[in-house]
C-alpha cells in the first residue's frame, strides 16, 4: 500500500527520538529539540504531547525507552519493486554499471567500479517495466546514456559536485570548435522534455553552463594545472581555491541559477476547447497565479527565466487565440512580430509560386 503510516513523517520523527533514547536517557529539552528538528507544522506539538503523556508508550517519564536497538526501517515489498523497476531504466547506467544481465541483480558502485553485493532483487518483480510506460512527446535527440564516454563524464561531474572540486572540461561548441574551460560544478540540471543534462557551475569565463552531451572529456583539475584521475577528490582544489585561481582570468560570480533573471508574463485566457485546464497544466511547473475576470475569461501570470523567453513565446503561441498576452509590452511585441512574419510567409510564398 503506497499510502501507509510506516512511511509517514510521524513514524520517521519518532524513530529519530528512539535512536537518541536508545543511546542515552533523553534530557528534558532534548525530546523537544529532536522533534522540532524533524517534524513540521502541528506535528511538533502532537508528537511531543503524545510521547510525554504516554499515549504512545515508547518513552518513559525518565527519558529512557523500552526499545533496545536503534530502530531500523525495513524495506517494504513496494520499495523493493520500485528499486527493481528503476534498475531497468537506461539512465541507471549513469549511477552504476549494469551487470551482464539485462536486469542487474547487484548494484555496482559507479565511482569505484567495484562490484558490491548490495541488494539482491533477483526474486523481486518490478513495479513496472519499460514496456509498461511510453513517454510520447520527449525530444528525439536526448543524451546518449549508453555511451561509456558520456557515462564517465557524468560521473566525474557528479563526483565534483559532491566534493566541490574544479574540473577542466573540453567541450564542442555549436560551431564545432573545441572549448576548454575550468569550472566548479554546483549541480546537474535535467530536462525531461529535452532528455538532457546540463552542468551548472561557477568559475567559468563562459558562464558555467555546459550540455553534458557536448563534453568530450573532463577531469578533476590539480592546482598546478595538471589533471587528476576521473572523479578523484582533490581536497586542495576546493571551490574557494577555484575562485582564487581563476580570478585573474575573468572569473565571473555565478552562484545563483544561471539565467535566473526572472520575468513575468501576463495573459488573458478564454476558456474554450478546455483551454483553461490545458494552459494551467501546461504552465504548472512555473510559479504562476490565475484569476477569474469574467465567467469564462481568466488572467494568468507566469514567472519565467529570461533565458527561456523564446521557448515561452512559442509555448504561448501553441494556444492560438485562446491566449492573448497583455503584458509586458516587450512580450506582446515578440508575439506580434511572429504573427506579422507569418502573414508575410504566406504572401511571399504566393508571390513566388505565381511568378
Amino acid at each position: 500500500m503506497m499510502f501507509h503510516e510506516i512511511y509517514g513523517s510521524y513514524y520517521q520523527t519518532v524513530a529519530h527520538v528512539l535512536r537518541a533514547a536508545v543511546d542515552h536517557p533523553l534530557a528534558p529539552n532534548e525530546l523537544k529539540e529532536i522533534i522540532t528538528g524533524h517534524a513540521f507544522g502541528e506535528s511538533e506539538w502532537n508528537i511531543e504531547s503524545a510521547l510525554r503523556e504516554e499515549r504512545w508508550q515508547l518513552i518513559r517519564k525518565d527519558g529512557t525507552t523500552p526499545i533496545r536497538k536503534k530502530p531500523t526501517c525495513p524495506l517494504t515489498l513496494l520499495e523493493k519493486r520500485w528499486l527493481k523497476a528503476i534498475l531497468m531504466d537506461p539512465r541507471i547506467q549513469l549511477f552504476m554499471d549494469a551487470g551482464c544481465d539485462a536486469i542487474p541483480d547487484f548494484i555496482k558502485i559507479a565511482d569505484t567500479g567495484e562490484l558490491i553485493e548490495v541488494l539482491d532483487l533477483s526474486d523481486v518483480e518490478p513495479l513496472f517495466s519499460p514496456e509498461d510506460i511510453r513517454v510520447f512527446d520527449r525530444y528525439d535527440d536526448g543524451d546518449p546514456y549508453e555511451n561509456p564516454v558520456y557515462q564517465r563524464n557524468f560521473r566525474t561531474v557528479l563526483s565534483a559536485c559532491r566534493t566541490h572540486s574544479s574540473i577542466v572540461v573540453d567541450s564542442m561548441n555549436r560551431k564545432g570548435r573545441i572549448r576548454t574551460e575550468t569550472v566548479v560544478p554546483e549541480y546537474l540540471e535535467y530536462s525531461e522534455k529535452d532528455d538532457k543534462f546540463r552542468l551548472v557551475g561557477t568559475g567559468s569565463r563562459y558562464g558555467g553552463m555546459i550540455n553534458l552531451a557536448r563534453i568530450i572529456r573532463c577531469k578533476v583539475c590539480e592546482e598546478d594545472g595538471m589533471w587528476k584521475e576521473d572523479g578523484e577528490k582533490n581536497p586542495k582544489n576546493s571551490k574557494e581555491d577555484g575562485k582564487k585561481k581563476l580570478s585573474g582570468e575573468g572569473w565571473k560570480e555565478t552562484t545563483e541559477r544561471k539565467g535566473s533573471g526572472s520575468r513575468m508574463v501576463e495573459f488573458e485566457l478564454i476558456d474554450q476547447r478546455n483551454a483553461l485546464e490545458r494552459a494551467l497544466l501546461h504552465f504548472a511547473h512555473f510559479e504562476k497565479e490565475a484569476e477569474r475576470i469574467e465567467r469564462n475569461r481568466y488572467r494568468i501570470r507566469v514567472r519565467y527565466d529570461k533565458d527561456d523567453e523564446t521557448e515561452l513565446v512559442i509555448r504561448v503561441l501553441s494556444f492560438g487565440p485562446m491566449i492573448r498576452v497583455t503584458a509586458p509590452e516587450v512580450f506582446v511585441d515578440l508575439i506580434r512580430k511572429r504573427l506579422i512574419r507569418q502573414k508575410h510567409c504566406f504572401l511571399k510564398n504566393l508571390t513566388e509560386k505565381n511568378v
Partner: protein
Amino acid sequence: MAYNELIKKFNRTRDYMREFYIYGFKSREEYTRKSARSYDDERRRIEAWLGDYMGFRQTADGKNVFLSIDSRQSRHNPFYRAWKMKSFTDGEITLHFILMDILACAEEELSLAQITTKVDAYLAEFETPRLFDESTLRKKLKDYEKEGIVSSRRKGKLVYYRLAQSCLMEKCLTESLSVESPSGDSAKGTQEYLDLLDFFSEVAPCGVIGSYLIDRAEENRECSSSANIRERKKCGERDGESEKNGNRGNDSHVEHFVFKHHYITSAMDSEILGELFLAMREKKNITLETINRNRDMIAENHVVPLQIMISVQSGRQYLMAYMPRLKRIASVRIDSIVSVKINDRNSRFEELRERLRAMQPYMWGVSTQGRSGQRLEHVEFTVCYGEGEQHIHRRLEREKRCGTVRKLDEHTSHFSADVYDASELIPWIRTFLCRITQIHFSDPRLEAQFKRDIEEMYRLYGLEEGDKETRDCWRDQTEMMDTERREGNRVCPKIGEYLEREGEGR
C-alpha cells in the same frame, strides 16, 4: 470530528491540492457548497504541509487560496509531504516500534504467544500499560507481512514470525556502501545511493516511493544528535528555507540535481498509478471509477489496462486501455481516475498490447480516433527559415515523433504525418508560426479551423488590417497545395503499409 493534521484517505486531499495548485482562483464559497468544514480542514492541512508555497488573494468573491511552485527551484517534489501524513492510532505507532524491536532482537523466529508476552514486558514499566490482545497483534503482523517487512512460517498449529530478509538487505545497502568505499569516506556510499534516489524520485513513475527510501537512508545517517540540531538552530535555519534551497530538513543531505520542465502534479496520482502497474504486471482486467469534473459525475468502466502514456510537455499521464464496451483501445486520463479495482486475469492481454504497439506509429499523442471519421488523417506543412536558422530543421527532426521531415532546400523543410487524430498536432504546429508557408489537413474542417484561429490571432494583436488579404492568402495557398497533391500523386508509404496490414481501404 475534531481537526486532525493526519488523513485517513488520500482522495479528498488529492482533489483539494489539485484545485489549489492547478487552478487557484476559486473562492471559499465555490468549495463549500458541500461542506464548509471540509474546506477549512483541507486548507489548514495543506497550509501545514505546503505553507511555503501557499498564497492568498482577496477578490470581490472572497479569499482565494493558491499554490505556486517553481519546480526548478524546489529540488524535491513538495507534494510528497502529503503522502507522509497517513493517520494511525496511538496503539499502532506504539506497537510498530515495539514489534520491530522484538523481531530485530530475536535470534530466532517467534510465535504469536511469545511476541505477546514480550510486548507486555515492554509496556510493563509505564504507569498505565496498554494491553494488546493476540488478535490485534495477529492483524498487525498480517498487515506487515503484506507490506513485505515481516515473514511468517507455519510449523504445526503455530505460526512463527521474523523480520523479512529485506531488512537485513537494507541495512547492508546503506552500511556496506559506506564501509566498503575505498575512498575511506564513510558517507560516500550513502551519498551515491542518495544521489540515485534524488534523481529517480523526481523522474520515475511513483517517485514518492523514492522519497520514502530517501527518508530511510537519511535516518540511517545518524545525524539526529541534539548537538547538530542546536547548531543549526543557532544558524537560524528554517525548514522551509532549507527545503527551497535544496535541503529537506535538519539532517538532510545536499542534493545535486535540479529539474527543468518538471511537472510535479503526477505525484498526487501515485497510488492510482501503482494500482494500474500492479494490474498490468498481472495482466488483469480492472474496474475504473472515473470522474467527469465538468459534470461532477462518476462513471464505472471495465477495461483491460495496457500501457501508461506520459507527456513530459504537459505533465499529464494517461492509461491506454482496451474498452470491451467500445471494442477499441482508448485513453483515460489518470488524474480523472478515482479508484481502481483489480479483477480477473485477461488471456488476451499480450494480443491487445501488441495491437496498441501496432497503432503507436499513427498516434501523435494518445488519441486513437479523429473526428473526421477517416481511419487515418493526413497533415503536412512547410516551413521556411533564414541563413542563421538551420536549427529550425533540427527542431523539426527532434520533435517530429511519428511524422516525416524532409529538407526541400537550404531554407525550407517539409513535415508530414498520417495519424488517427490530426487535431492533436495543432498546438505543436502553431509553435512554428512566423515560418509556415504551406499547410494542409486531410480533414477540411480542421484546416478551416486552423486558419480561422490564425486570423483571430491577427485580430487579437491588432493586425486585422489586411484580413481580407490574409483570407485570400489562405484560400490561394490551399488551392495551390491541392493542385500540387493532384499532380504529384504522392502516396505516403506509411499509409500504404498500414492499410495493407490492416486490410482496410480508403
